[in-house]
């Protein structure tokens, strides 16, 4: 994988506490799976950076190789790969997502 591309991803997930690689933007998701993760993060009041892979074919392919994960969306917390839509949803339902975010020092709205 191209060095510049992996550096760019590495910088993004380091500079932002929570990053979601997704199809579309947090305001206008272009895919139901991406929309589902945006909705969960929003519900938790988590500030995150959305990276629209549809706007950048190099990132779209690159993030799959970088994460060794063939699908979008992909969630990163403090530089660590958490998973895709199924995993994020399961972790949200069990409370593990909230725990993970809090343990990494990310502000979560407690309901």
């Amino acid at each position, binding site marked *: 994988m191209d060095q510049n591309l992996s550096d760019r991803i590495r910088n993004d997930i380091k500079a932002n506490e929570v990053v979601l690689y997704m199809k579309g933007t947090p305001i206008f998701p*272009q895919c139901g799976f991406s929309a589902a993760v945006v909705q969960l993060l929003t519900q938790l009041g988590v500030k995150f950076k959305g990276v629209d892979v549809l706007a950048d074919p190099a990132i779209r392919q690159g993030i799959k190789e970088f994460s060794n*994960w063939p699908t979008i969306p992909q969630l990163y917390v403090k530089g660590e790969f958490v998973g895709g839509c199924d995993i994020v949803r399961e972790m949200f339902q069990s409370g593990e997502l909230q725990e993970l975010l809090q343990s990494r020092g990310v502000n979560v709205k407690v309901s």
Partner: protein
Amino acid sequence: MAVADIIRRKLSAALSPLRLDIVDDSHRHAGHSGARAGGETHFTVEIVAAAFAGKSRVERQRMVYAALADELRVQVHALALATFTPDEDRARRQRD
């Protein structure tokens, strides 16, 4: 061969599942960017396999993705996954 049959054959060989449910959801995504005429692009797969014991969620899904790498590259646009060990599956059913 239908894509669902290929998925079944490959996952059976890779993971020896005790239970394997494959649902073709493609019709629900008709007209969406990843959908294709003829469907067979969107699937939901639920797998119960002893091979998942001691593995994280991410590791489990990577095992599934590895077995279906060719399909995910070309034909399969979306794969919703639920993975359970036999123990987890039993506990889950008792709760229901």
